[in-house]
């Protein structure tokens, strides 16, 4: 592929995509999290209706539900205060405590909407389409079964599968490492570092450092 963008255009594109992701989808871009979500669904199955409703509920809905459940269990405030009119203890204090919990303007937005499996699959599938369009426009689309790259071939041509095993082992490390560090190049590297998050700064230094060291070791070995 000889149609690589200059560094400034690449930087503009990365920032532009990350910002658009936030504005259009309402979340920070984080690709390894989508893999994690898919693997979790595969391991644990779909969340049951109760768990899904809880996570998709807004704060206002949650507070209303808690209030309703409280009334169902202990009786509504009016009934309680009528029944215990002679009592020195009033139930008003409970009401004000609950009111204090509520935000001044209860947000209608979900606390954290659970994305569907289809959303994650569509995003990952669309990455394939993006690569396809790029290759088609560059006129460089050709199906190659062997891993492509001259440096790659010179390093790994004699390893099992002509380098396929290297890709598989590398992939396992990528999958395990990104899940362990809870993020990858997009979530930690781009979005986390730019928000000056300590975990992202450490993870990014670690993965760039380890990749640079590994690349130099490979060069020396070859």
């Amino acid at each position, binding site marked *: *592929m000889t149609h*690589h*963008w200059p*560094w*400034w255009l*690449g930087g503009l*594109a*990365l*920032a532009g*995509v990350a910002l*658009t992701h936030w504005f259009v*989808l309402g979340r920070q*871009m984080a*690709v390894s*999290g989508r893999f*994690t979500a898919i693997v979790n669904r595969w391991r644990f199955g779909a969340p049951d209706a109760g768990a899904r409703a809880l996570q998709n509920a807004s704060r206002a809905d949650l507070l209303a539900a808690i209030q309703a459940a409280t009334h169902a269990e202990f009786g509504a405030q009016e009934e309680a205060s009528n029944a215990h009119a002679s009592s020195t203890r009033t139930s008003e204090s409970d009401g004000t405590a609950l009111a204090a919990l509520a935000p001044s303007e209860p947000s209608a937005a979900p606390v954290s909407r659970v994305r569907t499996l289809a959303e994650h699959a569509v995003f*990952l*599938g*669309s*990455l394939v*389409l*993006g*690569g396809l*369009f*790029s290759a088609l426009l560059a006129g460089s689309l050709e199906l*190659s079964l062997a891993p*492509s*790259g001259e440096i*790659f071939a010179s390093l790994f041509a004699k390893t099992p599968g002509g380098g*396929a095993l290297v*890709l*598989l*082992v*590398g*992939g*396992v490390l*990528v*999958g395990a*490492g990104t*899940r*362990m*560090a*809870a993020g*990858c*190049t*997009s*979530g930690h590297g781009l979005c986390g*570092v*730019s*928000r000056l*998050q*300590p975990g992202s700064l450490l*993870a*990014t*230094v670690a*993965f760039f*450092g380890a*990749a640079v*060291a590994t*690349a130099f070791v490979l060069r020396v070995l070859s």
Partner: protein
Amino acid sequence: MSTLLRTSILGIVLGFALSRIGFSSWDEVHRMFTFESLRMFLAFVVGVTLLTLAWPLVRRFSATPPRWSARPIHRGTLAGGLLFGVGWALSGACPSIALVQLGEGQAAALFTLAGIFVGNWLYSWVHERYFRWSAGSCVDD
């Protein structure tokens, strides 16, 4: 516009951009890691710098304060980052890249993709069995 359509457009644009920058080329990624070419490092630094300037503006002009998850250091941050770095240099791919490579016709990226799913699955199993610390997650972002 439906959520799925918006999600799809974002995926296509990201895949296209990553391909054009050169992140989907094993050789180009290695020219970056060995400092033979600083082009992609610079693209990354420019991207991060622009975002660092942009997020405070986004926050200021948002109608409601945006909820962005904190990304604290935990016990898996350093080790996970190191494992990922070694894997990135070996496979030439971070998670999105394996898919972009497939789109470009690099069929061998199927091995990388399979590895990523297996590794993610394996770590989640190891984590539950042996580690059990709170690792946070990208899922909520």
